[in-house]
């Protein structure tokens, strides 16, 4: 339960975030903030299942579907993103069910699950590249500029509007995170992540619980992809899909810490600021350097700080619990300690 004090802190923080674009209008900084909010939402979506030990490297695929389906429906059929985004979310959800059901039903876990989802994001990238007649292949794809109603086309020119949209979507992600956190599903999923057989014996429907959280996570990730596409108005297979994007999600979530609802957001702030700093520092020679630093940091984090920055900080601040449960020592299988 959220206490009075924390509720007040959230309210003040939110009011400040909403007021920000009206007080501060530097377009570059607003752009960075919008990117941080959209990616935070994507990382939060990933961590919804990641925190229960369901390490998916297929989320690049779901994000790609969200972005490309929305843009393709707009360009080829003239369907507004207001219709296209729900369709893309359904498509990503369907794919999640098709891949998730056999995995969960037949107990494909651990290494196997990671490799299957890894292949999934690779395949989505291949499909986008293969259908280059429609998607532009690896050269990228641009949604057509709207001639009429901007709202209907979900295309806005000013950064303030986009900032508020991204803020709303991000907040929605945080709310869903807390909703899951306080639901019965959380206890079921934590039980599953500790011992599937014991959970099943205790009456938890393992397959159904895993499918539900996977579906939710995939659908939200597709929404993140679609919003990213509408904001940037240019997508390439590499920026919204594939193994690299999936790994980027895992990396940010681990750096921030899956411990707390704001962990993935914290991860997004750190990774995007890092990437921007490197980009400005190296200039046009930055291609590759940011990912090189990412990769080295990811390895170092997993070896030395598997709970993430925010997670480790909170650990220091809180009095140590007696015995850490086994799954809390893992980089991604970290549940929130009882509060």
């Amino acid at each position: 339960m959220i206490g009075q004090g924390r509720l007040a802190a959230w309210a003040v923080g939110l009011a400040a975030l909403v007021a920000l674009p009206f007080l501060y209008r530097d377009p570059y900084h607003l752009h960075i903030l919008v990117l941080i909010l959209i990616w935070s939402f994507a990382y939060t979506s990933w961590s919804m299942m990641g925190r229960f030990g369901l390490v998916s490297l297929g989320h690049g695929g779901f994000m790609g579907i969200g972005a490309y389906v929305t843009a393709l429906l707009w360009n080829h059929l003239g369907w507004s993103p207001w219709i296209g985004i729900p369709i893309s979310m359904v498509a990503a959800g369907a794919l999640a069910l098709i891949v998730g059901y056999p995995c969960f039903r037949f107990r494909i876990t651990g290494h196997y699950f990671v490799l299957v989802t890894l292949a999934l994001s690779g395949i989505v990238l291949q499909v986008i590249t293969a259908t280059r007649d429609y998607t532009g292949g690896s050269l990228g794809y641009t949604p057509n500029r709207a001639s009429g109603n901007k709202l209907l086309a979900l295309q806005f020119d000013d950064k303030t509007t986009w900032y508020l949209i991204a803020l709303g979507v991000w907040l929605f992600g945080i709310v869903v995170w807390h909703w899951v956190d306080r639901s019965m599903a959380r206890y079921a999923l934590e039980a599953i992540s500790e011992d599937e057989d014991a959970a099943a014996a205790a009456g938890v429907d393992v397959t159904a619980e895993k499918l539900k959280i996977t579906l939710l996570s995939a659908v939200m990730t597709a929404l993140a992809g679609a919003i990213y596409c509408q904001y940037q108005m240019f997508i390439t297979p590499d920026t919204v899909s594939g193994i690299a994007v999936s790994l980027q999600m895992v990396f940010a979530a681990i750096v921030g810490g899956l411990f707390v609802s704001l962990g993935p957001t914290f991860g997004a702030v750190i990774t995007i600021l890092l990437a921007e700093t490197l980009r400005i520092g190296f200039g046009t020679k930055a291609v590759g350097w940011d990912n090189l630093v990412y990769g080295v940091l990811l390895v170092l984090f997993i070896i030395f700080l598997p709970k993430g920055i925010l997670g480790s900080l909170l650990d220091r601040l809180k009095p140590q619990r007696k015995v850490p449960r086994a799954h809390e020592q893992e980089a991604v299988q970290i549940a929130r300690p009882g509060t």
Partner: protein
Amino acid sequence: MGMQAFLDIFDIYLLEAVINGILLGGVLALLALGLNLIFGVIDVTWICYAELVMIGMYAMYFIVQYYGLSYFIAAPFTILLVAILGAALHYLVIAPLLTAPPINQLLATGGVLFVLQSFATVAFGIDFRNLGIRLPVLAFGDMNFSYARLLSFLAALVGMVAVYLFMTRTFTGTAIRAISQDRQIMALMGVDTKRMYLITSALGGALAGLAACLLVLQYDVHPFVGLSFGPITFLICVLGGLGNFIGGFIAAFVFAEIISLGGLFSDLEWGYVLAFAFFIVMMFIRPAGLLARRR
């Protein structure tokens, strides 16, 4: 054109695709063998395995194109280099994480994937490069096969037989197999597991290096080339059962046929999509792997 003539041509193409599938299967089996070896012995999945192959392909490119050495001198150097890379990967990344949860090890190799890809981007740029060696095409009846594929297939077979002999005929190989059966007890019996892990990692790297020497004959090298055959290698290993050498071998040829026959009807990418669809179906039928006994 009559129906009969159409069928004749179709059959020739079909046969050609089937044989090309077998030739492709050799290299895929080699990749799967390397990954399975690492998994079977050390219980780690290197998701950066295809990126090691990519580095090997660059090594071949530079030794042959830049230093002007012959292909057959470059190959042993490349195999040695990637073997050292494999051992270094184990020493620097996996060894500190040996007692950590398996998922941490796997994600750490994901970090290495990032590092290798971006290292290649920074060092070599994103241009597509090729060896510039054009091997002749072998005409057999009405069918055409490239020598590159034939050579790759044979070399892959030789590589696999060599690994088999090493694993069954030498003391080190026997010790490695013993470790894969029981990790704890072998240390008590006086086998230096750390050393065995390093040797296995180097061997896995060497197989990636050999695959690089063969793939560079057929494909252009660029920093993201690993993404074209990495996912398929993972699917092969999962379908064959991780750590199961024979399962991986059979699955490699099954997948190669699907890719080759799928590519007959359209682009190669669609072959991959078909392979993935097949994989999903197989998970329903044989969830524990191709060779698992039905419960």
